[in-house]
């Protein structure tokens, strides 16, 4: 048993060291003959052992979404970066916001992303995200036009060193709509502290009707409110 597991551990270590990307236990098992196929329990055992074997080393065995991966401990990344010939790519805010929306709101259509961001999303961004294999089509929304629904991939999680979506930073708290309404409803409910202060009110009343504002408001009167 003991000896066997050491051997198994070495093989798994070799496989993970040689791999191009993370390997799942299933993938690791494929390297073995039927005759010596290790069971899952043994696999987990040696994987756990490897994690602690490397505790003092400059590399660590981590688990990301699609499996296990040896990687350099982040303490030493600055030196590795200095050695690398290429600068790491930087991503635009537009791309990152789009990616964030897909990650947190998946499945989501491009139209829905545009609605939340308030601007159109360029095709380049969608293409880049798909080429990097960070997002992919996961279906179509059953509405006219059948827009594509996007979700994130394992590659996305692997790239950002995550084992699952739950490890993403939590979203900023959204104060719920009801309470916003309550707070804004400054007519009757006197108990509410968040009344618009008289001075704000006055300021609003005073300087409001700049001409073009009035104009566009008129023009807008019989059309539905934008964005609604």
């Amino acid at each position: 048993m003991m000896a066997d597991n050491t051997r198994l551990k070495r093989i798994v270590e070799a496989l993970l060291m040689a791999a191009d990307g993370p390997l799942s236990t299933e993938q690791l098992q494929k390297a073995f003959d039927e005759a010596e196929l290790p069971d899952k329990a043994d696999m987990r055992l040696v994987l756990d052992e490897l994690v602690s074997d490397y505790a003092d080393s400059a590399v660590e065995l981590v688990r990301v979404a699609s499996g296990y991966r040896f990687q350099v401990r982040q303490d030493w990344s600055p030196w590795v970066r200095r050695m690398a010939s290429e600068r790491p790519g930087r991503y635009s805010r537009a791309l990152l916001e789009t990616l964030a929306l897909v990650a947190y709101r998946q499945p989501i259509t491009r139209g829905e992303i545009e609605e939340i961001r308030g601007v159109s999303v360029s095709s380049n961004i969608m293409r880049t995200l798909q080429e990097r294999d960070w997002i992919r089509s996961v279906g179509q929304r059953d509405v006219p036009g059948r827009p594509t629904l996007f979700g994130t991939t394992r590659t996305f999680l692997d790239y950002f060193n995550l084992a699952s979506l739950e490890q993403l930073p939590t979203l900023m708290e959204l104060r719920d709509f009801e309470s916003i309404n309550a707070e804004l409803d400054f007519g009757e409910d006197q108990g509410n502290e968040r009344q618009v202060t008289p001075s704000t009110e006055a300021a609003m009343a005073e300087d409001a009707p700049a001409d073009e504002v009035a104009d566009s408001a008129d023009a807008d009167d019989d059309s539905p409110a934008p964005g609604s």
Partner: protein
Amino acid sequence: MTTEEQQTGARGDQAEMPFAVVQGEPYTTMPRDLYIPPDALEVFLEAFEGPLDLLLYLIRRQNLDILDIPLAQITRQYMEYVEMMKALRLELAAEYLVMAAMLAEIKSRMLLPRRQEAEEEENDPRAELIRRLQEYERYKQAAEDIDAMPRMERDVFAVNPESGSQKVVRTMPETTLRELLVAFREVVARSQLYTHHQVRREALSVRERMSSVLGSLAGDEYVEFTHLFTPEEGRAGVVVTFLALLELVRESLIEVVQATPFAPLYLRTSGSRAGGEERVSEQ
């Protein structure tokens, strides 16, 4: 109170939040007038990811709670901004105008006298705007968080040892010339490549030769001009090599030196210059 005074008043106690640097000068406030040079404005425009982003900036800049937006003031600032962009005929994304209309509409509704019953049925007109701003801000924040997370190529480096002294025979995916050409057609169709550069067959053989000449000039060494030609290729080959050399010189990829008139020409890659000079200075 004049508009002018209000503006200064409102700006007096703002937190300084430089959001753009134009020609070395940090800008901490939104442009208030049209004295901003057009290229600076373009930087402002690029600094924002659309109208929601701009509105958020206007609100945050004054340390205001989203729920407390002084709508009139924000609307006015927003309009000034949009007007400036229009005046300078910057290409203005339609979204900015839609937002302008939305703000104007909300503002006008807020000014109308309301009856209580109506109010109960009808939400505050700002609610929708606030909802959108809040929602956008969440994801704006989430994007920053994601950007700060450790990621491959920048913070996380996978190990990469040799996988054995015997070369591992890896099965590579296969592809075909057709697939390659389909891919090329598509990229050409997408880009302006077709209109800008006519890639002709002639040019192609020259470009190929450019690569191989560059390859043979890989070191820091000078190579004699004549050594780059292969007489066995015949006239056509020599012409192609010569054209490739001319093109390489034109693109500043190689340099040609000649000590004295009629002396042999020597070539090397422009890239080796820096290294060469360094070595000279070390000696």
